[in-house]
Structures are given as C-alpha cells and as structure tokens.
C-alpha cells in the first residue's frame, strides 16, 4: 500500500511544494533543518493542516484531491506528536482506549494488549499522565496511536522533547516497532542518529521542497549532499546475522560486499541488523595488510572524492555495490595516488551494531 502525496501550501513567508511516493513498508524518515516543512507535510497527510491544496492517495483510496478532503478523524493514521500530549483528565488505560473505542470492531487489528506489550507500559495503566516521566508519557502516546490499528504511523520528532537518557530508553521500543509493524512509518527528525538507527528510506527537505530521496545508505553516502560532510559523517550498512563465534564473542554479519566481524551483542541467526561505520574510522591501503589488528578489511573501488576543508578529503568507496565513506587527510590521498576507479582496500577500525 504505497502512499502518493502531493501538497501545496502557501503561507506568505513559507511555502511547501512537495510531491512524493512513500513506499509501503519500512520507516521513511523526513529529514531537514527546522522550518523546512517536515512537520507541515506530516500534518497535511493527517489532515490537520488547513488551507492545503493537494492530492493524497493511500493504497487504492483517495484521501484528498480537488473534490474530496477527508477530515482528520476519518483518516486511518496513527499520529505521535513531539510532546506526548496525553489527555490530562484520563488515566493511561483510558488514554489508550480513547481511539480504540471509536474504531469499529471489524477494524481492530492491533489489540490493546499488544500495544501495551510492545511499549512496555503494562505497569502504568492505572496512573494519570502527570505521574509519568517524559519517556513513559511518550511510550503511552505511541501505544495510543498504535491502538487505532492505523494504516500508517506518523511520528513527529517523538524523541526531540526528551533528554539523552529518555531517548535511549525509547529507541529500542521504536526499533522493535520497526521490526514488528507491517505498516509504513513516516518519521520526522532532525537527528542523524535517529535516522541512522530507524530509517530505511530518507527524504531530505529544504525550504519546503524535496532536496533528495532514496534509501538511508544511499543518501548518507552521497557526496553532493550536506549529509556527507558533517564531523560525524557515517555510513549505514544493512546486514544479516550469519553466525557467532563463541570463543572470541564475535558476531558475523553478511552484507552484499562481504562479511563483518563485530564484537559484542549476540543476535538471532538470520535476523536483519544495521551497522554504522564512521568515515573517520576507515583507512585506505593499496595492498591488503595481513599483519594487523583490524578484522574488517574489504576490497573496494574509489568512486568519488571531495575535499573537506583544506587538509582533509572524503572518499566514497564502493565495497561491492555498497557505498561507504572514508575521511582521510589530503596528504594521504595524494601519497596513495587515489583517483576514481582505483582498486584499494578499506580497513574498518570500528563498527557499531545498531540493532
């Protein structure tokens, strides 16, 4: 059930002009600086944005066009706002039931029980919202949105109002949602970390326009986008758990360019995982080093290079069909004679297993 959206909003100082197709599965992150229109786009999809001309088709159903405009309560979405926005006059259970009760029996696909378990809020049901921490409130808000069995989940920076510790508390729940839900999720964020951990697809927004769209791995490694040039530039690689070495406590993860060995966390065999490699943790050699402590070395090809300031350079390497960014000094690049097309080896000093 893919989503076709086209919206036009003109508010004088701000205009939004966007057309996109959102894939039916996985998390599509809407990413951009504040004021770029990502929240407005989300609100337009939910029908909350007034004076918005557009076209919205979800699966085979038209939600909005020139002659039709479903009001928000008739659009089967689940919406998580930046602040938890629980109803202060209702306890947690009745907050969760609010939407569920208004749903015809036949359309209840997600049970309250399931939503409660997914977010781990069983022990909070009798409490009032003001007795919960910010993180707990947001988990209840997410469960409340899921309990209406939505056709898509819209999340507007659900972690932005929380501190680091609360964020870490919620992220695992979001990751498990990602694995368990088979509905499209639109996730508004201005945090690279969240996008790297949760996003499958990425839409970059800038001043109310789509700047680029594609998979997270693809866009994170495109040198023509600002994403590739931050101090914490990283590449996200999707992999499958292929084995575990009991003796050294290493997980083996296969991706289309080879096999990573990663220390720590043991994951079920065959499960999907994502790996994050920082550009500054990759070094480049012309010959395969054999006597080295580095476990992960891959044959690669230099694809593209771009200067980073005056002393550094960002190199886009292709490991098989997987693009990976490396950040090295300009001197090293000159000494090695790096140029597009050159066959090299990428040594990955450290890699993080995200899920």
């Amino acid at each position, binding site marked *: 059930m893919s989503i076709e959206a086209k919206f036009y909003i003109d508010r004088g100082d701000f205009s939004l002009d966007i057309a996109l197709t959102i894939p039916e599965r996985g998390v599509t992150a809407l990413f951009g600086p504040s004021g770029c229109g990502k929240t407005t786009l989300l609100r337009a999809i939910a029908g*909350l944005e007034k004076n918005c001309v557009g076209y919205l088709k979800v699966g085979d159903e038209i939600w909005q066009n020139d002659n039709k405009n479903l009001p928000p*309560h*008739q659009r089967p979405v689940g*919406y998580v706002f930046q602040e938890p926005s629980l*109803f202060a006059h209702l306890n947690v259970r009745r907050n969760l039931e*609010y939407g569920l009760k208004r749903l015809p029996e036949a359309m209840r696909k997600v049970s309250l029980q399931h939503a409660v378990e997914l977010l781990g809020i069983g022990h909070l049901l009798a409490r009032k919202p*003001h007795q919960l921490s910010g993180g707990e409130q947001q988990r209840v808000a997410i469960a409340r949105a899921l309990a209406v069995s939505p056709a898509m989940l819209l999340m507007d920076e659900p972690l932005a109002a929380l501190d680091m510790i609360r964020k870490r508390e919620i992220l695992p729940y979001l990751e498990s949602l990602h694995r368990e839900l088979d509905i499209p999720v639109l996730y508004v964020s201005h945090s690279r970390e969240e996008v790297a951990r949760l996003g499958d697809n990425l839409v970059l927004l800038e001043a109310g326009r789509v700047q680029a769209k594609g998979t997270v791995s693809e866009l994170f490694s495109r040198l023509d986008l600002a994403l590739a040039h931050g101090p914490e530039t990283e590449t996200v690689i999707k992999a499958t758990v292929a084995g575990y070495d009991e003796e050294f406590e290493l997980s083996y993860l296969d991706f289309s360019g080879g096999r990573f060995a990663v220390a720590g966390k043991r994951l079920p065999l065959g499960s999907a995982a994502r790996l994050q490699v920082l550009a500054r943790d990759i070094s480049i050699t012309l010959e395969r080093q054999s006597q080295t402590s580095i476990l992960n070395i891959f044959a690669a090809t230099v694809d593209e290079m771009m200067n980073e300031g005056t002393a550094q350079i960002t190199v886009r390497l292709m490991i098989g069909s997987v693009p990976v960014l490396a950040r090295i000094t300009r001197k090293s690049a000159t000494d090695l004679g790096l140029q597009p097309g050159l066959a090299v080896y990428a040594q990955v000093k450290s890699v993080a297993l995200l899920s």
Partner: protein
Amino acid sequence: MMFGENDLTALWITLKLAMVTTLILLLIGTPLAWWLARSRWRFKFLLEAVVALPLVLPPTVLGFYLLIALGPHGPIGSLMEAMGGQPLAFTFTGLVIGSVFYSMPFVVQPLQGAFSAIGQRPLEVAATLRASPLDRFFTVAVPLARPGFLTATVLGFAHTLGEFGVVLMIGGNIPGSTQVVSIAIYDHVESLEYGQAHWLSGSLLLLSFLMLMAVYALNRRFVVVKP
C-alpha cells in the same frame, strides 16, 4: 421573626432567578465562549466588547434600554404582544432576560479563558484518534475546561444574586413576583427596619462567600500538572 413572609418570597425569587439565569447562560455561553476562544474572525473583538459591556456599564443604563426593548412599545415587547403574549417588563421572564445580559461576562469570560488554555493540541490528538468535532468537544474540551465551568457557574450565580440596578429598572419591585433580596434590603433600610435588613444581607454575604470559597478550593484541586 428573622424573615418576614415577603423576605422569604424575595429569597426564593432571587435563588430561582439566579438558577434559571445560570442555566441559560451555561447553555448559550458555552458555544459562544467556544467560538470566541477558537475563531480567527478579524472582527471578533466587537463581540468580545459587547459581552464585556455589563462589567463597566451602570446597571441602570442596561436596565433602561432593556425596559424600553421589553415594554409594550419596544421591539421585543410588541413582538410578544403581536404573538398574543404579555410585554415582558415587570415580569419574572423580563428579570431573567435582564439577568442573562447582566451576568453574561461572568460566565462567558471564564469559559473562554478555559477553552483557550486547552489549546489546539489535545483536540488534534483526539481528531487523529477518530473523534469527530462534536465528540472532541464533549470528551476532551469540556472535561479539560472543568475548572472554567465551575468558576463560570458560581460567578454567574453569585453575580445574579447581587443584581440591583437592572432589576429595579425592569422588575418594578413587585413583592411576591419580581422583588429580589437586594431590593428588599433596600426597602427595609428605607423604612429603617435594620433588623430585617441585617438578616437578608447576612444571608447573601454568607451564601456568596461560601460559593466563592468552594470555587477557589475546588479549582486548586483541579489543577493538573501539564504534561
């Protein structure tokens, strides 16, 4: 004897008037306050000013215009006569109409404030949880505005109890039919019956104080920590 027979009737009429007026004001004041709280109409301030007028206008002025409007030659009075009824001046119904105007800001303003304080967000949340506009109003806006409703009810009631000028102008001070406590007190004082004036005044003072005390005590309990 603490209260004369007329005093008791005046007390009863006063309470009845305050109750009927408060009820009517809640019925018409709620949608009005809701609209004032949410509308972005650029001339909304005109209506707000009209609602607030009784706060500053001498009650006799309001009473004077109402007397003319409700009397046999006034637009409302002649309409009533044309429909086979009585002009409304000097009747209980006339008192109710006068009181509704007179106490309007005391009901509408707390409600408007309470509705504004809720903000857009809880209603948007309710909309994404499949609640229709009317459903949202009754299940989210009204419960969240509960302190506002309590304040509005008590202020509307208490303010109507203390009404004098408007009643004097359009009620005519007819014992047993339109004479309310505040005017009965005035009559007692005029006739130097200080004892009876004391009893009636004391009753109103106590009643008003108790009601306001209840509002402030309850509203403190209603304050919920905002998420």
